[in-house]
């Protein structure tokens, strides 16, 4: 019984910046409930690794060479709607938030706030919730969330 309480969620990290991947790794390290199961530095590898590793959560950058994070989210969501994608980006941009959620993302987080908000976002999305950076316009957040609930 107790074993299940210790069950870890497996997390895939996708970012073309090695230092961001190391930063995410270092944040997760402090929380035994999250296990880093793999890393990719581009969207196409993220799609491949999501097939191979079946992570519960993917933390992914948007701007990457080749397939970007939103396109990769769309591809992953199509085959594995149960996989939760959190986009971790530099861009505080309403339109990107909308596209991200339409592509199937469950979280939208700014890199500048990652240290404070990443674990909160992870906990939210594994509980089937959603997480959007509080820096995004509240009206955009509520319209994106109601659109998500309709689908």
């Amino acid at each position: 019984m107790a074993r299940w309480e210790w069950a870890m969620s497996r997390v895939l990290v996708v970012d073309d910046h090695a230092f961001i991947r190391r930063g995410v790794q270092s944040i997760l390290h402090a929380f035994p409930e999250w296990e880093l199961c793999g890393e990719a530095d581009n969207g196409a590898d993220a799609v491949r690794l999501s097939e191979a590793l079946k992570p519960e959560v993917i933390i992914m950058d948007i701007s990457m060479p080749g397939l970007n994070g939103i396109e990769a989210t769309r591809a992953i969501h199509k085959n594995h709607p149960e996989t939760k994608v959190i986009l971790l980006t530099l861009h505080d941009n309403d339109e990107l938030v909308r596209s991200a959620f339409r592509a199937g993302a469950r979280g939208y987080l700014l890199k500048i706030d990652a240290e404070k908000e990443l674990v909160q976002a992870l906990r939210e999305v594994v509980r089937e919730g959603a997480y959007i950076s509080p820096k995004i316009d509240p009206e955009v957040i509520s319209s994106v969330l109601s659109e998500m609930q309709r689908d």
Partner: protein
Amino acid sequence: MLKILVADDHDIIRRGLKQLLSARTGWEICGEAKTGREALVLTEQFRPDIVILDVSMPDLNGLEAARRIHRMFPKIGILILTLHFSDMLVRDIVDAGARAYIMKSDTDRDLVAAVEALANRRTFFTARAADMLYNEHAQPGTSGSDPQAITRDRLTPREREIVQLLAEGKSSKEVAVALGISVKTAETHRANIMRKLELHSVSEVVRYAVKNQIIEV
């Protein structure tokens, strides 16, 4: 012990750098700064061997911070970290006194190699950056053909600093307070900048600052 100071406004990047660098024996992170100005203060306080500076930081950008650190402590090895590759920056980076340059997309190994190079008083530029530098030296005419690049060189470090503050939306009065100068001096600097760059409004200053990566939007 090799003492390293890390300056980046993103907590997660500082964390990543710390994770990578403190894993090496004999290396320690002696301080962390979130702005260029903080990097100056901590450099004076800790006297690190190496300072790693992100280019785009609020308050004082990484290049201006590099310039001042280099002027005060020429023996400190300065590594500049950028998000995007920019050929214009390579020359600026060298002029500012930095001797190593890597992009955030470079690998863990490049970072370690860059710090090792600086510790041994050598330089480190990735192949792309080195090519760019070589071309600039071989063909001095090419980099000078950009009119923005020519005019930019005429700005003093103080003026570049004021460009950043103006582009961040500060008034002359706020600039004066931030730099501890009189409002009149701040206004004179501002007028000189506008004249030198042939700009007529603050929004043009912002565009100039963005184009030349003095600030990030």
